[in-house]
């Protein structure tokens, strides 16, 4: 459930953070969700809302290089942080995901790609955890996960 500005009682906070490498300076309601700031105020609707309660992972972004559900993060908390969204992932890298059938309806996909991209950049996490466990925070109702897991594996360049 979204709670953005417009309750007259709420006061706003001025914050600065980095978004996909660009400096952002914005006034936010303390209850405003990062997901809504991105989607409705900063014109980055690639990040999706699937549940609004931290379960589905469709809203995954990274904050200071850690994946986070942006539906659970009040925007003011990213003050001074570096936030990255799906819009920062280079399109040219996504061929292996496409070829493996990692996307069907696409609603979960930006979140899936964000988690996958993070795993790719921190592949040491695969030493202690399986890809299936690492991807378990991104619900997909279409693919049955094989397309996603295969795609990430091909993208990372790990064993097929």
């Amino acid at each position: 459930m979204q709670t953005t500005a417009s309750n007259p009682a709420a006061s706003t906070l001025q914050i600065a953070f980095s978004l996909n490498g660009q400096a952002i300076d914005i006034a936010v309601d303390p209850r405003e969700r990062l997901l809504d700031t991105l989607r409705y105020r900063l014109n980055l609707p690639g990040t999706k809302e699937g549940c609004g309660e931290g379960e589905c992972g469709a809203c995954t972004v990274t904050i200071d290089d850690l994946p986070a559900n942006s539906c659970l993060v009040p925007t003011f908390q990213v003050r001074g942080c570096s936030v990255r969204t799906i819009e920062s992932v280079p399109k040219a890298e996504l061929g292996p995901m496409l070829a493996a059938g990692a996307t069907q309806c696409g609603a979960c996909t930006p979140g899936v790609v964000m988690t996958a991209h993070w795993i790719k950049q921190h592949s040491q996490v695969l030493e202690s955890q399986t890809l299936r466990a690492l991807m378990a925070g991104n619900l997909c109702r279409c693919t049955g996960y094989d397309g996603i897991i295969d795609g990430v594996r091909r993208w990372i360049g790990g064993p097929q």
Partner: protein
Amino acid sequence: MQRLEGLSKLTGAERYLDDEPLEGPLKGCLWGMTVRSPVSRGKITRITYGAGFDWSQFVVVEPSDIPGPNETYLIENDQPVLAPGYVRHMHEAVVLIAHQDRNLLRRAVASVRVDVAPEPPALDFRLTPRPDQIQRGSDNLLKKLQIRKGNIERGFAQAHKIVEGEYETGAQEHVYIEPNAMSAWIEDGPTGDVVVVRGSMQCPYYVLNALKHALKRDESRVRVIQSPTGGGFGGKEDYPSTIALHCALLTLKARRPVKIVYDRSEDMAATTKRHPSLVRHRTAVDQNGKMLAQHIEVILDGGAYVTLSPVVLSRGIIHAAGPYTCENVLIEGKAVLTNSVPYGAFRGFGAPQTIFAVERHMDRIAAALNLDPLQVRRVNLLKDGDTTSTQQVIKGGTDRHALLDQTLHIANYDAHKREAEKFNRTHPYLRRGVGVATVLHGAGFTGNGEVYLNSKVDVAGRPDGSLEVLAASTEMGQGTNTVFTKIAADAAGYDIADVFVGTPDTFRVPNSGPTVASRTVMVVGKLVERAIDELARQVGQNGSPLRGPALKSAIQAWHRANPESELKGRATYQPPPDVKFDDKNYIGDAYATFAWGVCVAAVEVDLRTAAVRVLDFVAAQDIGKVINPVLATGQVQGGVVQAIGWALTEEMKFKDGGMHNNTLTNYIIPTSDDVPSIRVHFHENPYPHGGGGAKGVGELPMDGPAPAILNAVAHATGADPRAIPLTPERLLPLLR
């Protein structure tokens, strides 16, 4: 060929309805929301709009604002658009409210109080209703259907043994990851204003018919356009008609554009679900497990309104006897009214419920006779020339016995079985087992449904020689656009770069029927091929169709000779020859063809927690010709995992008749870590009357996993589970 829109989905560039800026036709858009019933049944005595809001600043729609009948056009039109002073289920729509400020609107909607004088709801479809719960006819029946073949009494008289069983399945929520979303605005048209509705949907013409009916407009004054749709699974088959009507009513009253986007909890509480079912089997068998008579009773919970229940029941009973032949069959089906949310279309459409029952029952027959469950299947499995319960003669050349053997081989069935039995002798608390299900799925609409639909497809030849497929079939992740492009390119001898698939828009595309029932590639795909043929004939000499570059230049030449004109080839559905169904008596060819499948599941049960884990899963499918292996494999894997959820964890909890666990926190769908890799095997046998030789693929994968998994649990533990979801709570008491 790769998914056409795949990269824009992977980069987040695909724009679903809620992603679009409020510009263009949505400039000045209001947000719409719905006030819903707080109880399951009763008369609305009072609606109180909360204090502290300037209600003159809100647009409020009540039933009196509906220009035409307060009915959602479908089979019986018994579902109101807005509750007409009386509610029949929790969360039923009562009043619509719109405002430009989404947050203010949320608070305003929450402030509205609906008082209802409650009446006794009927909440358990398995019980005979009390007189004060009767709301339809004398017994709350929504629909009753029967299939009769031979004489079951004769079969029971010869029985070596009679095996009985009762099987139950629960409601299932679709959980498409994009919740329902719809927008509406008003445009000028030649014959007056036009209500335009654009949104997430499977069936634009269902929405169009609903708008025409309740808004009292003809099709020149309502227009329906599909927006990119983030999953459907049947959940966006009929329900979008309701949201489209709500959006259109608000827009008509406000004379401004309106958008309604459900959040997850509203979507889960208010929209349709898979029908819960109770199926009873009574089967006469001989010593070898050959079935001599099948008496099957199918009861579906229909929910508060008729909606699609009669056709779900129809498909359910036709699949109830499984892929087997038996001389004497009686199948009695009922769909029952209850005061819960109307149950609707969900992948498989009644068949997964009845196949669950028959496939679990086959294993129980085997247990009763002390036979191998595979033997009981083999002696009953349909061979070409055998007849189904509707006396349809099976043909098509698929060897179901070979498919079964091949699947067992791929699945390492024997090894799994041996190893499991060895493992179980030594492990203190884990038990392993393996289970099989053999399944069928009728492709396309049931009986004469396709004839009544009379679907059409246009293919336009454009001035540059390229082709545009104009069909009402929607892309919702299953790959319609990619597959249509490929089918059209193959039929025309074109490069795929010269083929386009138009957005479903009722002002541009003819009615190709709904995007349901695994019919899109098989039925509509065939129409695409025939429409191209027709187009090629129009521009060819002496009526002979052109192909490839010759077709392309002929189209260009046609346009030079006929500037500003439209060139289109059209095809209309024609049933394959010799397909006949008597829909009164349920005798004959229930489907033009069937897809066939075998599933093998290996599971591990933890006796301490009663948790079930699927260790290995093989799904072998005969879906005719496979047009796109990556997409078809993805359909099967996705369907299997959805079915694993239905079998093990997805439990809809009710409170006072409403969905109580309407969040993804406690309605549990599988994650990547809950399921194994799903191994898919296609057995290709091209179907001559299907687009590109294909039969349907969408639904078959949903049919087999639940019984295969429960059969495996029975094998692992010796328990006899007969109800799903088989949650630990349900399994624990069965583990002695």
